[in-house]
């Protein structure tokens, strides 16, 4: 009887573990399927002209060059604005802030910023940058909106990386007569850099794929030329995909898949770089 019981317990465990394995597989299988569908149907559309030409015939022919360029502009703009601010804020929180009400308030603000829906960022960007500051729908307005949206991601990952640097590094720095800032700059920051880099790249990848925040702040339906200044509207890859997928009938499907493929390759490439940096430095710095 007891023996019987034992078998059933062991069998239960086997069944449970098997079920959990299939659940995990079930979640990840669609990832492979999605990537495969896009790759299989999109690869035929990709050629030199598709990547470097202007759209033609109401976007039913030609290329997606201005959308690629627009996305690059936005991503660079957003990173330039959010990276210094995010890193400095994380340094404040990790290295300077004391346990007090102000710090709790800042943490609360970060939690809140990271939860604001992307479309609400779009509304905010529209009312502040486009209307109130009179930037109009422009690359500046879009970049700044994306930058604020990215800020909590950069702060959080940078702070984690700084906290992962052991306290004794700080004590050693101080004990060798370095000032507080010198200690942060020379005994902490260099060793947090791989983590900061990883987090930053992931946040850039996210910004590159975002559509809702740029809907009303920068994105143009169709512009037959590249933007001349940062106060111009621009096309962007994710918005372009949205447009050709839902608003324009009779586009060859390969164009849609091709656009999706370019977008996803951009995003995955950045993720890949981040993953490589992380695994490389995880081996190098062990403490």
């Amino acid at each position, binding site marked *: 009887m007891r023996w019987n019981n034992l078998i059933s317990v062991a069998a239960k465990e086997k069944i449970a573990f098997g079920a959990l394995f299939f659940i995990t597989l079930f979640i990840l299988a669609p990832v492979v399927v999605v990537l495969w569908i896009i790759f299989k149907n999109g690869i035929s559309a990709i050629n030199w002209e598709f990547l470097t030409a202007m759209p033609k015939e109401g976007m039913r022919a030609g290329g997606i060059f201005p959308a690629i360029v627009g996305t690059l502009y936005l991503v660079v703009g957003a990173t330039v604005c959010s990276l210094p601010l995010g890193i400095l804020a994380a340094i404040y929180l990790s290295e300077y802030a*004391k*346990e007090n009400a102000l710090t709790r308030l800042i943490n609360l603000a970060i939690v809140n910023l990271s939860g604001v829906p992307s479309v609400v960022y779009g509304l905010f960007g529209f009312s502040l940058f486009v209307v109130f500051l009179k930037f109009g729908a422009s690359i500046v307005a879009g970049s700044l909106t994306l930058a604020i949206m990215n800020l909590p991601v950069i702060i959080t990952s940078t702070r984690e990386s700084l906290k992962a640097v052991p306290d*004794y*590094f*700080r*004590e*050693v*720095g*101080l*004990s*060798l*007569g*370095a*000032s*507080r800032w*010198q200690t942060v700059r*020379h*005994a902490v920051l260099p*060793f947090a850099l791989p983590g900061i880099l990883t987090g930053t790249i992931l946040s850039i990848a996210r910004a590159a794929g975002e559509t809702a925040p740029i809907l009303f702040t920068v994105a143009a339906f169709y512009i037959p030329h590249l933007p001349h200044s940062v106060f111009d509207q621009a096309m962007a890859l994710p918005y372009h995909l949205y447009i050709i997928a839902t608003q324009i009938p009779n586009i060859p499907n390969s164009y849609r898949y091709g656009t999706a493929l370019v977008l996803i390759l951009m995003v995955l490439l950045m993720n890949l770089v981040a993953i490589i940096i992380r695994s490389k430095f995880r081996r190098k*710095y062990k*403490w």
Partner: protein
Amino acid sequence: MEHNVCFSVRDLDIRFGAVHALHRVSCDIARNGILGAIGPANSGKTTFLRALNRLNETQDNYRMSGSILLEGRDINKDFKPEGLRRRVGMIFALPMPLPLSIYENIAFGPRRQGINDKRRLDAAVEESLRSAFLWEEVKDRLKSAATKLSGGQQQRLCIARTLAVKPDVILFDEPCSGLDPISTAKVEESMVVLKKKYTIVLVTNNTKQAARVSDRVAFFLMGDLIEEDVTDRIFTSPKDKRTEDYIVGKFG
């Protein structure tokens, strides 16, 4: 006697939040000698040590009263923390090289003082390594990672790194707690040589070590400085019963 005093500690009282770590401690620390601070865990000896270079300040809830004079100047009022720490160096319990090269570990202090001239740095690195008896062992691989050295070598590297800042005082916080007997002997040997040029305060859990290297010994217990005297007298005829109990190993 007066002109030979390096640190003069008066009524030093330290709290970390609700924890009362040190109770109105007063003592003088003589120049060019080794003061060994002994006592069981949580006796306040490390807190005392870290008060001497103001490293306790990194804790949020730290509060202190009383005064510490370094050659007549109040370390909490007349010094900037980094200025003080350049004169009062510290060696930690575990060898803690930064994950940089041997060379860069030692150049860390000088560089922070604005010395970037390669020849001056080279000279400082060599001199410090020689003083810490490490030069011969590492002179051919200054560019390799400091973390690849053995534990004993790492601790001597940390001593060299501190010497490169050119301090007057060196604080040792249980410097041999992670080392084997041979490495310990080497570190102790270097301490005895170093005291000719530097004032040394050594916190140790190892009473025998204090007996071997110290000129004077201070015994701490539960935040109080019980007594401080010449090493021989502490070990042969302590005034306080608790000191005697600790030394013969009744507790701690």
